[in-house]
């Protein structure tokens, strides 16, 4: 729709006053994803952070392959070591993808080149998951290298692997990335997001457990309100949470993931970009 907003009798009435935008197609989502992915590694800090994480995961698994007890040198254990290390840092990488637009004020450019902010959010989420996938695949390969190293201290190259560990790795990665992304959208500030995320993953479950022991009646309530605790049954070998455990996942997931995500998204889409 191009209603003429010019006042009648304008001297230079005619061509030149409306922009013909039909010749230029919109920015495809794939290009936005590519740009967002590029932003993760195109700063010195981002590049070394990524490389540092990979290095740390490698170190953990190689040490495990060389020095763990025989029983700890199974493919399964080494995969969980790699996955666990990644689990701390992938969410941080994903959060920085969102918060740096505010902390570094690049949002001014990002959201003028693509004013439909929801598309940027989708592109960032896809880029975040792409990096996570790379991390998970790296962990899978690396755990195999660890097993190959295990004979050094007398290990027997135990390749046994069930579905459960891989499923757990993927599932925990997806959940942690989503929680981190929601938190990042909500606070839009790098240090606050990182501190907040580690409080949530590292401090909160412990505090909840202690409080559960100390205060009678609280223990049964915790899985309903603490998302980390509620996720426990998801990562059990048989992954068969009871009906009540599913309900706890839904309730605590709503509190810690769904509500922050919706709130954060709403704020991000409407907030002034300064």
């Amino acid at each position: 729709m191009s209603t003429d907003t010019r006042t009648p009798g304008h001297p230079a009435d005619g061509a030149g006053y409306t922009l013909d935008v039909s010749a230029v197609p919109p920015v495809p989502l794939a290009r936005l994803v590519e740009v967002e992915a590029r932003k993760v590694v195109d700063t010195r800090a981002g590049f070394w952070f990524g490389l540092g994480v990979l290095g740390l995961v490698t170190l953990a698994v190689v040490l495990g392959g060389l020095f763990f007890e025989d029983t700890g040198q199974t493919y399964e254990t080494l995969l969980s070591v790699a996955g666990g290390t990644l689990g701390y840092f992938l969410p941080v990488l994903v959060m920085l993808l969102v918060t740096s637009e505010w902390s570094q004020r690049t949002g001014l450019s990002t959201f003028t080149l693509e004013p439909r902010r929801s598309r940027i959010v989708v592109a960032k989420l896809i880029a975040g998951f792409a990096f996570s996938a790379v991390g998970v695949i790296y962990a899978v390969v690396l755990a195999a290298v660890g097993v190959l190293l295990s004979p050094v201290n007398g290990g027997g190259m135990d390749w046994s692997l069930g579905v459960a560990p891989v499923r757990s790795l993927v599932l925990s990665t997806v959940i942690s990335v989503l929680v981190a992304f929601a938190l990042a959208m909500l606070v839009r500030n790098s240090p606050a997001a990182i501190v907040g995320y580690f409080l949530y993953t590292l401090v909160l479950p412990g505090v909840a457990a202690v409080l559960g022991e100390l205060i009678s009646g609280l223990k049964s309530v915790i899985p309903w309100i603490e998302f980390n605790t509620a996720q426990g049954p998801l990562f059990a070998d048989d992954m068969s949470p009871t009906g009540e455990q599913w309900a706890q996942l839904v309730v605590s997931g709503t509190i810690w993931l769904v509500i922050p995500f919706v709130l954060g998204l709403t704020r991000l889409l409407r907030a002034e970009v300064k």
Partner: protein
Amino acid sequence: MIEIRHLSRTYGGFTAVDDVSFRCEPGRVTGFLGPNGAGKTTTMRILVGLTPPSAGTATIGGHRYADLPNPGRHVGVLLDAGAQHVGRTGREILTLAARTMGLPSERVEEMLATVGLTDDEAKRRLRHYSLGMKQRLGIAYALLGDPQVLILDEPANGLDPAGIRWMRDLLRGYARRGGTVLLSSHLLHEVELVADEMVVIGRGRIVAQGDRATLMAQHSGVASIVSATDPTALQQALVAAGRTAVPAETPGSLRVDCSPVEIGRLALEHRLVLTELRDGAAGLEELFLELTADTQREGVLEGATA
């Protein structure tokens, strides 16, 4: 090309932009002038969709900015040259934008050359850029998509005199080729040499707009500065002719509320010898200060004692 109609933006009880309307024509540079905090930046931010307006509309070429499918290809925007990741190189900052817009990497090199950033400078990270280099990079950023419209907030900020001249020539050339330019400044002298049109804003409201001649004609009265060998006779003649004569800034001279021609005739009639006779109308600068006087911080202070 740019059409702003009855635009307002309030923050709680504070009105940052108050019923602002103006337009920018293709082929012309429009200077958006006002003291700090007058509402220039807020208006520009609303124009490009970063801040939602409380009321009114802002369109570019008949479109809301947010409705442009690939806005970088139509509108070049520079709001804050420092709002880039300090850890990125200049070239990388342009490359990200070029990739988003779907432009080849040669375009990045072209723009670096246009704004005079050397290969060595392009490889440096923004953290190590001077303010002037940041501005040049920002201009390159705005020009990258070969847009028909440029929106620049304080682009001359931090440029040295040679840089300001370069920017002036660049914007002039751009407008001559049919481009539309809206540039803001709080410094009159940065704008008056390059702008064809001026929009003066103070405390959120437009206080004057038009080209230089229109502004002067509308807002500053006719006046002359005159002195004569016989000041008393001159004064008497002027008063007899119904004019008001007051001492001018220079001792011995009078400021009179009529044109120099009229005084010349009067002097001939009364056989007076004039030693000075010139146009005493206020300059653009006085006009600017006067128009925005009640919106300046200094003005606010004076007002508080009244």
